């Protein structure tokens, strides 16, 4: 079974215009204070504090093993914290665990589902597990099916669905009860580019009703979908960084022979869709430019345009974004083997 296209309004790639979050305007749905988690002597999370506000998407970033999933599992009640407090909508996840869990929708990594169940059966089961019944359950299931475009597969056995549909079923079970907080662990894992785009739009739509906390390895995705990112390294929170908004374009890095630098600069300036050209000094026999373009994905067009005027560039690639540079700078202390 293949993934069908979501409704057009879910294909949003830009963030909705709304009040800036994270500055005390919207009330906090999640409040994490000095959170710590130890496994024996190993400290998986150490003194992490941050908040997630209503209608805000916060991205949790960090290398593998930095404590992202552990934090999500504590938030959702799967693990107990060793120290510190976590409150969901005012309810402590340890003392008032059931009330806190009732306010959370959770999409675990790799979308674990009951493969033998049919989609509708699974959604009804998850609704009843959250105490829903009667008309409320029916409404919740119908609404989740519609939001996730699952109507064509309501009778399908989950084990036979494509990866994209399984991910949608996993998200549908998490939004059945209109949770205050939606938690997604690596939701783009295993999805093809089209499904990633659909998911991005979907997250923005879901953020109209819930606070969203999401982890992902793909920084560009975070940049497009999140209002703020919290960057973790070795269980410690390095920074909570507000994102200004969607980038309107992209930066390219162009390298070419230094002896033809003037011709390259002139050719670049003359290309359509170029917002600015800045000379860089890469050293050696090469000259470099940082080129601001109106749209992402312009690197092949720029390389082709240079070719047409007789210049073979050595390198034409998209430069790292601000978030990527921030992430790389902050996590530089981690030795990668």
């Amino acid at each position: 079974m293949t993934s069908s296209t979501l409704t057009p309004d879910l294909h949003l790639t830009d963030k909705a215009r709304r009040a800036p979050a994270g500055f005390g305007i919207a009330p906090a749905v999640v409040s994490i204070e000095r959170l710590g988690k130890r496994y024996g002597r190993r400290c998986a999370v150490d003194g992490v504090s941050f908040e997630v506000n209503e209608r805000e998407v916060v991205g949790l970033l960090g290398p593998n093993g930095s404590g992202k999933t552990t934090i999500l599992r504590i938030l959702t009640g799967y693990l107990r914290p060793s120290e510190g407090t976590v409150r969901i909508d005012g309810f402590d996840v340890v003392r008032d665990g059931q009330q806190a869990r009732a306010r959370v929708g959770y999409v675990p990594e790799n979308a674990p589902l009951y493969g033998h169940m049919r989609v509708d059966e699974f959604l009804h089961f998850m609704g009843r597990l959250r105490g829903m019944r009667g008309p409320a359950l029916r409404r919740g299931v119908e609404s989740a099916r519609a939001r996730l475009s699952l109507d064509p597969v309501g009778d399908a056995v989950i084990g036979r669905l494509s990866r994209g549909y399984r991910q949608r079923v996993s998200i549908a079970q998490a939004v059945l009860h209109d949770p205050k907080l939606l938690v997604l662990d690596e939701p783009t894992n295993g999805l093809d580019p089209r499904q990633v785009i659909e998911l991005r739009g979907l997250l923005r739509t879901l953020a109209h009703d819930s606070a969203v906390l999401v982890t992902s390895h793909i920084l560009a995705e975070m940049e497009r979908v999140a209002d703020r990112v919290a960057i973790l390294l070795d269980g410690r929170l390095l920074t909570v960084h507000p994102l200004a908004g969607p980038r309107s374009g992209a930066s390219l890095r162009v390298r070419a022979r230094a002896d033809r630098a003037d011709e390259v600069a002139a050719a670049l300036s003359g290309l359509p869709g170029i917002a600015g050209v800045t000379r860089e000094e890469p050293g050696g026999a090469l000259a470099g430019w940082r080129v601001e373009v109106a749209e992402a994905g312009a690197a092949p067009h720029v390389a082709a345009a240079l070719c047409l005027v007789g210049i073979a560039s050595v390198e034409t690639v998209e430069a790292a974004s601000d978030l990527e540079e921030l992430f790389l700078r902050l996590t530089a202390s981690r030795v990668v083997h």
Partner: protein
Amino acid sequence: MTAFLALVAKELRALFVSPIAYAVIAVFLVLNGYGFAVTLIATKQATLANVFFQAAVQLVLLVPLVTMRQFAEERRGGTLELLLTAPVREGDIVLAKFAASMGMLLAMVALTLIYAGVLARFSTPDWGPIYSGYLGLVLLAGALVSIGLAVSALTANQIVAAVVSLGVFGMLWAIDAWAALLPSPIDDWVLGLSLLARFQPFAVGAMYASDFGFFLVVTLLGLFLAARGLARR
């Protein structure tokens, strides 16, 4: 209550979706039917005592196949995360799995009532031992299922869960043989832990409160350990 009933229904469906339940029931009925027929023809006595002993041994061998997947499969497939992050207690999850497993085993044992019907049709059996024998089987099944669930809650591997459960059941079944090697009064304490020694009186029509209490305590202890095995760490 809605959540608990949903869990029980889901567990029952999961049991009967798998071919294991049908295989277990078929093997149990074929072996017991064979045993009942042979005993009846050989002894010509209207009793089910022999059937109860056979059924008890088969429960020891077959219950691990029913309980092995209960938590191990949920843990391996990641669906345990769905259950434990829902607003339900660990105890409800354990009780639902216990209720579903017992439901299947009780239905399986109930199918042997046909033997009692055969005896009633052709003779006048003593119903006391038959009632107590069935009560003994139900209590034994409860104890075995709860221990099996506790073992399954500790591992993500179904085979490990089955083998360890079988080991524990075998040890508790045959522990009376060890008791003979121990000095008094330790031998009495050890003998008191034997599933066989506790089940034997039920099969022959004798019911003691101590045996009843033993099976009840083992069942509750098993359920408690299963809930502890699941507990959020």
